[in-house]
């Protein structure tokens, strides 16, 4: 197993009351798998994905990457894990609007202290992979939603992570663009990366290897 989440608990304070969203969920993904996480709104899909990606800490449970347990109590280990292994894609692309495509993709590379010349090689390669060759100087606002999401995918791929976590990547795209993005993710997956997609769309889910359903807990 590449990634394992075991007995994950997570609760939020909602209206001053502690409400458990995830109560003992376990989940695992193998290398090269493309998994869809489905479930009704509020079930905790995003919560689970964020825990898997290390930007949200579970209250309890285990996070195991490549048979090494990551101490979820340690911010440092989580930060490191996230930086080394995880690429994020979100519904609204999370591009910085006043920076051009090149600068947006450069952010994770700069954080990882990759030098300028290497950066430009990586960026043009990533753009080629998502079919946006030569768009380095374009600003996100001048692109369609599909194109923006492809830039976001290029950015996620730039650091060569093993796991891509996508929270409703096609949620704000029309079917044609959604298809493009999905094909792209499929391709990424075939190169040996693990792709986990949270989606409401059965069409999207049907193109994954496996579907994981999360039930909404009944609240008191």
């Amino acid at each position: 197993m590449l990634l394992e989440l075991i007995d994950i608990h997570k609760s939020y304070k909602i209206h001053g009351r502690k409400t458990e969203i995830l109560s003992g969920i376990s989940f695992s993904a193998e290398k090269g798998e493309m998994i869809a996480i489905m479930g009704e709104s509020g079930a905790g899909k995003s919560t689970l994905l964020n825990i898997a990606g290390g930007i949200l800490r579970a209250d309890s449970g285990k996070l195991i990457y490549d048979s090494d347990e990551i101490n979820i109590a340690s911010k440092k280990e989580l930060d490191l894990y996230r930086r080394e292994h995880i690429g994020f894609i979100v519904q609204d692309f999370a591009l910085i609007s006043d920076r051009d495509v090149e600068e947006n993709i450069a952010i994770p590379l700069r954080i990882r202290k990759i030098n300028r010349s290497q950066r430009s090689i990586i960026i043009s390669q990533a753009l080629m992979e998502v079919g946006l060759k030569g768009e380095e100087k374009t600003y996100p606002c001048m692109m369609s939603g599909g194109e923006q999401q492809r830039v976001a995918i290029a950015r996620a791929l730039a650091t060569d992570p093993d796991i891509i976590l996508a929270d409703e990547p096609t949620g704000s795209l029309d079917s044609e663009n959604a298809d493009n993005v999905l094909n792209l993710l499929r391709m990424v997956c075939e190169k040996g990366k693990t792709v986990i997609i949270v989606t409401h769309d059965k069409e999207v889910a049907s193109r994954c290897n496996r579907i994981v359903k999360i039930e909404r807990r009944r609240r008191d």
Partner: protein
Amino acid sequence: MFLFNELIIYMKKGFLITCVIITCIATAIVLSNLTTLIVHEAETDLQEYNETYADGKYYGIGDKLMGDVEDVFVKQDNCIDILINMNNWLHNNKYFKYFEGRADQISYISNEIEGEFKDTYNDILNAFWLGPDDIEHFEIKTCEGSIFKETDFYHNKSLTNEPGRLCDGELPIVMGCRFRNKYEVGDTLDIYNFFYVGKAKIIGFLEANSKTVDSNGNIYVLDDSVILPFFTDFSGEESSIYMRCLFLQKNNGKLYSKLTAEDLQDMVNEYMSYLGITGAYFVFGAKNQWQVVFATNLDNMINDIGKIAIGITAFSSITLAIFLFVKIKKSERYFGIMAINGFNKNQIRYLVLLEVLMIITMSLVLGIAITGLIHDISYQEYDVNYLKGLFPLVITGIAGFVIGEFNIENQELSSLISRKE
């Protein structure tokens, strides 16, 4: 390096407000240092003049009758009477003793090339106008000849209307001990000075190392000086410029007292208001002296500037706090994007704190630069206390730090990304 790049991009947002805040903090720094300068300006003059003579202190007294103020003063018909009254008051006060003594220079026609160039060749000598009370107080004695008699201080020779009048008689003078090998008692010199032009007759030589205090407050050794009696001349009704200048000088002496400069200034203020010349005279070092230009006294000025500085500090702290709060709130989405790109919480925190530090550094640099400039053009030799500027910085810095920490600490990275832009 990366963080620095991000910082610059981050700081560009709302940079105009940042500039306003920087200017405010810098102003507060400048103002708090300005009070140092003003206090200093008053205090430089307050040297503890000379403790060898007695248990009191010497305080210089000066006037502000210069420039425009002088022009107005001179137009008063009784301006000379006012000056003479002031002089009498100074001399007849039970709370302090008054000394007129003052260092000056005189020209004299050299004896050495007597004859040929008598009218054109002249030389400069240090001179000291000794007041009537100085001799006794400073225990000034002669080693040869005699010292001035009381009558030597009343000079009633015929006058011209010009200042620096040619006099018929001979002004008695005493020489410092250095002159003993050059002159003898009874020799005469042709001297000229604003207050006297004519013959001067040596009546004695001072003991070596005779001392007094000059009007700048320093001990003044008389060995190299020609000692002149600082005479009083009441006969010059028609030479008003002369009389005015004479008494202006005579009233710029020093007070000897056990009281503080402020107490003395209070007395001077009271008498000045009686004479109708409020603000004209100031006791060196007194913080309650009147600032003619600002129509207030120094103490009030320092207080006011201090209050303004505190006000600006409070304003800039609050503005900085609000600015940071709003900016962080608005940047949450950006922080979230940085987080999914690999930023950790500490890096976000550094970004916020570095901005605060940058604002503070820039304010400090600007504040010190302006203070330094004011310091330079004020011709005052004193150490600028830049630490004073840290007061506003500490307050604003703490405000910034608390806001930054407070905002970032309780946030999950995952909730930052879900913020709308």
